[in-house]
């Protein structure tokens, strides 16, 4: 995988520092994500991986450092701005709209593509109807892609865990993001489900050319999927490089396996 041609830098974070009160959650983190790559962020529990994603999509506002996305440098942005610039994400603990059907969840993911005003929507005629049908078609393409046709009208709250994860991926894909942030997409899955999900991630990357930033604990998956890996521990950046480099890094091994105390 490492011989793949990577594009220009799409996202660059520089010297990010984030603290909650006296707790330093992220300390001087800098890395970049190139267009079209699968970039993993790994690290032990509490390393600050999810916080890093929250910083990227504007949910946390770092006290220090800058984020450059598609050439625009900023300190922080509101989540809906990040969304409109093409950043989508999934969550570690599924954050689906439980009362809504699979289809409605995915259609909500397309809300930024829809523009008609409330008066057309009230009549459900003309542009509103046209827009609804066009977006339905796009949503159906994602439903086909993820092979979830059978559950499209089911309320997602009642679906099994693995399928909920898949629907959540679908909702993020529906926005046609340029950068997709996946927060532990395979947590709590069995090996078969993990294989399916890995396949979907590779396919998304391949077919849609979506850049992916991935947090995952399963090292086998991470090392197989990623183009490059960044390692965090206690908010500090331990390593950054291709999987083989990272695997051989002594500090990373220490962080994962522990250091013998003399």
């Amino acid at each position, binding site marked *: 995988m490492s011989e793949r041609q990577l594009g220009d830098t799409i996202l660059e974070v520089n010297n990010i520092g984030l603290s909650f009160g006296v707790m330093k959650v992220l300390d001087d983190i800098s890395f970049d994500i190139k267009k079209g790559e699968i970039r993993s962020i790994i690290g032990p529990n509490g390393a600050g991986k999810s916080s890093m994603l929250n910083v990227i999509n504007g949910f946390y506002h770092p006290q220090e450092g800058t984020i450059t996305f598609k050439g625009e440098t900023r300190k922080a942005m509101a989540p809906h701005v990040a969304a409109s610039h093409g950043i989508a994400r999934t969550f570690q603990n599924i954050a689906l*709209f439980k009362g*809504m059907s699979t289809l409605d969840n995915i259609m909500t993911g397309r809300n930024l593509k829809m523009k008609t005003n409330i008066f057309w929507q*009230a009549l459900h005629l003309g542009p509103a109807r046209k827009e609804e049908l066009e977006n339905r078609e796009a949503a159906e393409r994602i439903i086909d892609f993820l092979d979830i046709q059978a559950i499209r009208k089911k309320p997602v709250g009642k679906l099994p865990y693995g399928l909920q994860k898949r629907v959540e991926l679908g909702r993020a894909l529906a926005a046609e993001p340029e950068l997709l942030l996946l927060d532990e997409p395979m947590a709590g899955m069995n090996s078969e489900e993990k294989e399916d999900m890995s396949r979907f991630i590779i396919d998304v990357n391949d077919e849609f050319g979506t850049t992916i930033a991935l947090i995952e604990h399963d090292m086998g998956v991470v090392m197989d999927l990623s183009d490059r890996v960044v390692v965090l521990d206690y908010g500090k950046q331990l390593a950054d490089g291709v999987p083989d480099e990272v695997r051989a890094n002594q500090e990373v091994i220490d962080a994962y396996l522990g250091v013998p105390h003399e």
Partner: protein
Amino acid sequence: MIYRETGQFKANYADDQALFPIAQDRYVVIAALIVAFGVVPMVLNQYWLNAIMLPFLIYSLAALGLNILTGYCGQVSLGTGGFMAVGAFAVYKLMVAFPELGFIPLVILSGLITAAVGSLFGLPSLRIKGFYLAVATLASQFFLIWLFNKVGWFFNYNATGMITSPPMTMFGVIITGPEGSPMAKYFLVATIVAVFALVAKNIARGRIGRNWMAIRDMDIAAELIGVRPLIAKLSAFAVSSFYIGMAGALYFAVWLGSAEPTEAFDINQSFLVLFMIIIGGLGSVLGSFLGAGFLVLMPILLKNILVDGFGTDSALAAHIEIMTVGALIIIFLIVEPHGLARLWRIAKEKLRLWPFPY
């Protein structure tokens, strides 16, 4: 057997996204409309139209409004009575000032005024949620009623502080105030309610409705996929208040004829409408009608059975009525917390499989 989708194939997304994709649902709705506009006015006498159908329809409209806010967008409000008062006073001032505009445009205008007021009182929802928001909207209820009692301009400085609906006509028939014909009033209100029920259904199934539900179900995730909480919440407050304002306008101008803010629009109204949507079903257009029907019809039914059937003393009957309705609400919430609309849905599921259990 009766309620079966088998054989109803959808060849395109337009059919699948239709208002009622299943043919049997369409027949039921068409039948309901025929009954509402054809049979009911023929069969029912003036008492029934005036004392039962009018409040049922007007409360349905108010419940629909609150359901948009609470059921679809998840923002609890106890300000319904206050917003109904805004609609009532708006339509009163407009009827006195611009009678030439015609009644329906005035009702819609007063709905729009209420929408503006509602969005203003919806601003706290951007910061606070749940019970705390309910308390904040409670403040709007008390403030608005106080305002309409204190500021003479709203009731044109008359001595009683009451507002009385001036008679207005439509197609030559008086439709407001006590002189109006119940039949004409019924047709007017039924038309408005039917049209705006359709509008609510359309909004709820489109982008705006989905954004509301997204905010209700998981506001953080909604924000991260580009739903703006500010716009989603305030639009829910605005649309909801628009409906409630129209309901208030009809309640005052068409049904009551004259109203006094402290009595007609007090906190009990807010609770009544909230109970309607809880019993009817949160997040369901049908549920708004079922809940309103239940809470409007049940007391009247009980009273008729007790007083006319058993000859109970009417004061005692009133107390039994309150107790029974209270008990029924509790029973309902235990047996089916998702309301009457859910029962209807379960019944449909069963009908799809009948006569086979699996």
